């Protein structure tokens, strides 16, 4: 009996070792041994890049409980002014996390000191130091916040703070009567783990002015080597922005 147990234990240990080695070899790595996230990836909510895309929104059913009285901080009624109802429509920044959820790809550029996430949407760029520095202090709150990263094993963890109050996601596409917002107390933690040619992407939303507790949702990003040519495209939003000052004008073609 004891002999059988020993054999079983050895077999289990060997299997685990082989599985771990296999897992470690499965993914591309940088010379420093860290998982390689370089490349062009579909955004977390993209369902099918060749067809109608997924919605860039969080699943409301999986959000945390809203604090009593904080509903008005989470949802704002439509005003008719695009600068408020849908700032991206007037080429204002999408911000984070909404820009990450939008269905245009991101390119990740990685060194041992930085992870750089370049969004095709508005060509927004998140430069995330990995050297252990703390969050910057004394800066004005911003649309994309202040991000720092570190490794937990093979998982890249990105911690972001110092956001200005802004639209949380693309909820307004599903309900034209209102939009969904985060507060200026937003704190996010992203967990990126490479699995083959996908990234398991978890984001934790910690917004203590709105929710009773942090909550997380999981997405998947897919590597697209076929998008290396032509790479990320330029995104000059002002090029054909017909919605300045919150109102749109008709095209020359229709005048």
């Amino acid at each position: 009996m004891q002999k059988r147990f020993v054999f079983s234990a050895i077999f289990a240990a060997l299997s685990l070792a082989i599985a771990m080695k296999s897992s470690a070899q499965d993914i591309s790595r940088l010379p420093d041994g860290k998982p390689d996230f370089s490349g062009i990836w579909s955004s977390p909510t993209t369902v099918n890049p060749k067809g109608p895309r997924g919605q860039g929104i969080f699943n409301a059913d999986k959000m945390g409980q809203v604090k009593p009285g904080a509903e008005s901080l989470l949802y704002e009624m439509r005003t008719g002014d695009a600068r408020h109802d849908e700032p991206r429509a007037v080429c204002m920044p999408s911000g984070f996390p909404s820009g990450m959820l939008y269905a245009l790809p991101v390119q990740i550029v990685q060194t041992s000191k930085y992870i750089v996430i370049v969004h095709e949407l508005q060509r927004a760029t998140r430069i995330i130091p990995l050297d252990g520095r703390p969050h910057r202090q004394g800066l004005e709150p911003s649309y994309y916040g202040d991000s720092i990263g570190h490794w937990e094993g093979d998982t890249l963890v990105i911690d972001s703070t110092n956001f200005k109050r802004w639209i949380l996601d693309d909820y307004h596409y599903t309900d034209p009567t209102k939009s969904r917002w985060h507060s200026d107390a937003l704190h996010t933690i992203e967990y990126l783990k490479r699995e083959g040619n996908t990234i398991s992407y978890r984001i934790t939303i910690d917004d203590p002015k709105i929710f009773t507790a942090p909550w997380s949702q999981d997405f998947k990003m897919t590597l697209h080597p076929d998008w290396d040519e032509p790479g990320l495209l330029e995104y000059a939003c002002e090029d054909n922005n017909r919605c300045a000052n919150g109102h749109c004008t008709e095209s020359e073609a229709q005048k």
Partner: protein
Amino acid sequence: MKRTLPAILFLGFGLFVMTKPILAHHSEAAEYDPTKPVKVTGTIKTVEWRNPHVWFYVDVKDENGKITTWGFSTSPPGMLLRRGITKDVFKIGAVVNVEGSRARDGSNNATGRKVTFADGRNVIAAPSE
């Protein structure tokens, strides 16, 4: 369908009220009414292959020969490109049938959901967010 080319086809409603679009052109749900489908056939007049959204314009001739230009908003160029849709697909003068949802403001703008060319090719062009 071919016998009607290159003309006509206003289906459903007969609104010809020309009012200026007053809201954002990005918002699929807020700016375009899915309960007001648009289906027109005409010729591509011009294409704005630019960010933040590609727009293309279709001249549609009614029974009296009057031409109305419809503007269709669609995805950003990058999104179309990754669906295999390049600028060359939208040739000026090409006859197309376009299905979409009309702008809530009653203008002759719409979100272009599906584009069918005279040779039967279908292109998914929308949504326009």
